[in-house]
């Protein structure tokens, strides 16, 4: 094993954080999050007339004494939250200094650890063609509690880049198979023609999506001068360029326009968009930028 994804000082700081959700979400089992359902917490929610089959223990006798009718006293349910971590492991992510994939794993680890320390459920899914050509994503089905951090980190450590992948298809499949909606963290560079498809697929179900648009500094400011044949590590498609200042300037304009496009696309669908520059230290990013954007508290 190489060095740990997150060092212990960072983990201690992460203990104090929590994932913010904008609305209540239903979970499978009891937890610490408000759920839209009525359940058995101490917090009053509503009254409801008794119908046959209701648990008579929930009847509010004080109200019966006043109204001579049976009413049930309902409480807010507190359930666990399922946090979905999606990591793009396509070959394009395994590039750049600092490496984008490693950064994405670190982000996922941090986010997952925060969720686990809040007794939430964490599922991790790696996109990309793992295995022999099949489009099946490697997945960690779900861990709970701080004990779950060990398998979570282990899984993320084991993630390896896959030669290709279709982001759109992978997202479609994930949406169809995911059981409970919850906060969803997508770590990807979106360098895929189907990025719009993928984001709209994710937003079709009530997930609270945060897109970590991970780009390496070499992509933000290409260090090129001269005539080059640029080869795509994923598809192998070559592009011939004669890099000069003018071309680089146009590349930067292009990149900015694209990021703006992604951002407006996201805001149109209630997706939180966070541009990530892998040259920013992970601690600074998680404790600073993510909190400022209201993803964490």
């Amino acid at each position, binding site marked *: 094993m190489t060095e740990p994804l997150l060092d212990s000082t960072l983990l201690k700081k992460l203990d104090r954080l929590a994932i913010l959700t904008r609305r209540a979400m239903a979970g499978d089992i009891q937890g610490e999050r408000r759920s839209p359902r009525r359940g058995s917490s101490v917090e009053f929610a509503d009254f409801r007339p008794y119908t046959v089959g209701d648990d008579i223990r929930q009847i509010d006798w004080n109200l019966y004494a006043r109204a001579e009718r049976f009413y049930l006293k309902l409480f807010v349910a507190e359930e666990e939250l399922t946090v979905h971590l999606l990591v793009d492991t396509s070959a394009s992510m395994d590039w750049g200094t600092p490496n984008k994939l490693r950064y994405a794993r670190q982000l996922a680890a941090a986010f997952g650890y925060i969720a686990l320390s809040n007794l939430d459920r964490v599922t991790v899914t790696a996109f990309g063609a793992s295995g022999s050509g099949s489009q099946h994503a490697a997945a960690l089905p779900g861990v709970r509690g701080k004990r779950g951090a060990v398998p979570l980190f282990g899984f993320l450590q084991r993630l390896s880049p896959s030669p290709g992948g279709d982001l759109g298809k992978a997202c479609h499949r994930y949406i169809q198979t995911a059981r409970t909606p919850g906060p969803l963290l997508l770590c990807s560079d979106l360098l895929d023609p189907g990025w719009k498809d993928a984001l709209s697929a994710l937003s079709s179900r009530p997930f609270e999506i945060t897109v970590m648009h991970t780009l390496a500094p070499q992509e933000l400011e290409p260090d090129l001068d001269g*005539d080059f044949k640029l*080869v795509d590590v994923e598809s192998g498609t070559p592009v011939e360029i004669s890099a000069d200042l003018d071309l680089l300037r146009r590349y930067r304009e292009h990149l900015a326009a*694209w990021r703006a496009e992604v951002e407006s696309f996201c805001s149109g669908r209630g997706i939180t968009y966070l541009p990530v520059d892998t040259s920013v230290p992970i601690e600074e990013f998680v404790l600073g930028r993510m909190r400022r954007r209201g993803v964490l508290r």
Partner: protein
Amino acid sequence: MSLIAPLALLAAAVVGPLIVAMYLLKLRREERPISSTFLWQRMVRDVEANAPWQKLRRSLLLLLQLLLMLLLVFALARPFFATQGISGRNLIIIIDHSASMGAIDEPPTRLEAAKQQAYRLIDQLPDGGRATIIAAGGQMAVPAAATSDRRELRRAVEQITLSNAGGSDLAQPLTLAAALAAREEDSEVAIISDGNVTLPDDLRVPATVSYFPIGRSTENAAVSAIALQAGPASQTLFVQATNYGQQVTERRLDIYLDGSVFNAYNLTLEPGREQSIVAEIPAQVQVVEARLAGEDPLPADDRAIAVSTLGDALNVRLVSNGNRFLATGLALLPGLRVTTVPTSTTVFTETVAQVPVTILDGVVPPTLPPGNLLFIGPVRSTEFFSVTGEIEFPVVRPVGGDDPILRNVSLSEVSVLKAARIVPGSWGRVVVDSDGTPLLVVGEREGRRVAVLAFDLHNSDLPLQVAFPLLLSNLMGYLAPGSGAEASQLLPGQPLALQVDETIGEVRVTRPDGVTVSSRNGAVQIQGGQAIYADTEQLGVYTVEEFAGGELVARHRYAVNLFAPGESRIAAQRDLSIPQVSGAQSTVSRERDGRQEFWRWVALAALIVLIVEWLVYQRNSLSYLRERWRQRRA
């Protein structure tokens, strides 16, 4: 336009494809893996919208390199234009720098135009060719001899300055050029002059002679003579102006006395004619200047200066028993103070400085007086000559050509009754003789000038003729150089000679340009009782001061004027007749196979293309710098 080395063009056939091949190889770009070509592809689609321009930009370097290569190969092929000029590999350039080349009809002067022509000829010199520069006119000079260093040649030409001295004699330069040309095969002589030159008759130049005439104007007027005669109470000024041109010209002659205007005369000068002015001017005037107002092509001869000789009369001692002819003749000569001494005198106490000339008329004292001597009809031998008897009815016959003693003197009508038969020493030069017996001997011995006239004036009809005062004047001019009105005027380059005695310690000369030179540093030489200053090229007044023991004892003025009709006649000759080895006589510039090579300019263009190519190659850095600059400005 043609090429000297067309084979060099073959290099283009080799190097051209090489460059193209290298360029094609270079097009194989360096491969660089990147995360995704997603963004690049979208951009390249944009770029391809203006693809033709992009393609051109990409091959701009190739085009520039090919252009550079073509220019270099073209320069190697040594292209040239056929021009009128010279083609020889051994070039001898004779540049006339006589006074007439100072004419300003070819701006700025003819000499400058001649230099420009010389530069052109040097430029046309084929590679490896050699050239010799000869400056003709006055003192001949060879500032550059048989060198192929163009810079040295140009420097040599540049250093040629106008020379007022002497005439425009091409005999010596042409003889030298012929000798130089005879040594080499492919020789050519180029004469750059206005053509107012004297040519040798008996020279056959073993080379092609080209003549490049300089000058277009023919009109010129000059002050051709000036004289200031000292009279008893005033001075007589004589000025002559001559029109050397071909058209009538009207000029104003201004007379300045000691720098202030005295009078002006309007003169109408017929072509080839002169006009004179005679004026009485006050005795105290020291320097008279005559100036032709207005402009003409040659300004140097529009001005002449005369200096007063009043007061510095020459003391002459006449030892005679009374000779009316001689006394009258001497009295007619200006600037002489004659002291008559009886023949019985035997002791002469005055020094040379006080009495420089003694005339011994029919008497020979036992002790000869110091200074220069003129013996007339000597009766006995002296240390200078022996008297061996008498001859009767000698035939008076001048010896040789134009001795200055006999200038303007005609002796053909002179009869002599009897003369002393004298045998002069080796110092003597016989000027007039009669069947081997000298009648007039002049010469110099131990710094003393001696003249001997063998017959008594009473035994001849010479005093009754016009020749007598002229001969007397010439003799006195010889015996007392540097004195008298005539001696105060010099021609440019003529040495200034002054009789000094041994008490004079220093002689200073102040030149017209204000520079003072002295005998102390050797610029003025004192030897044999004479002070000599030779550098009289400049026109104007020279002031000579004599110092004895630190005290000024005498001051003389000399005027140097350009009285040279040959130089004032400035009309340029179209042809010079010089016999050449080809049998041709004419030296008119014809169309000749001169070659004006211009590969240097082609190479310069190649250099510029190289710089442009480099800038295009480095355009990234340039635009980076520009951006930085803009940021800093902002």
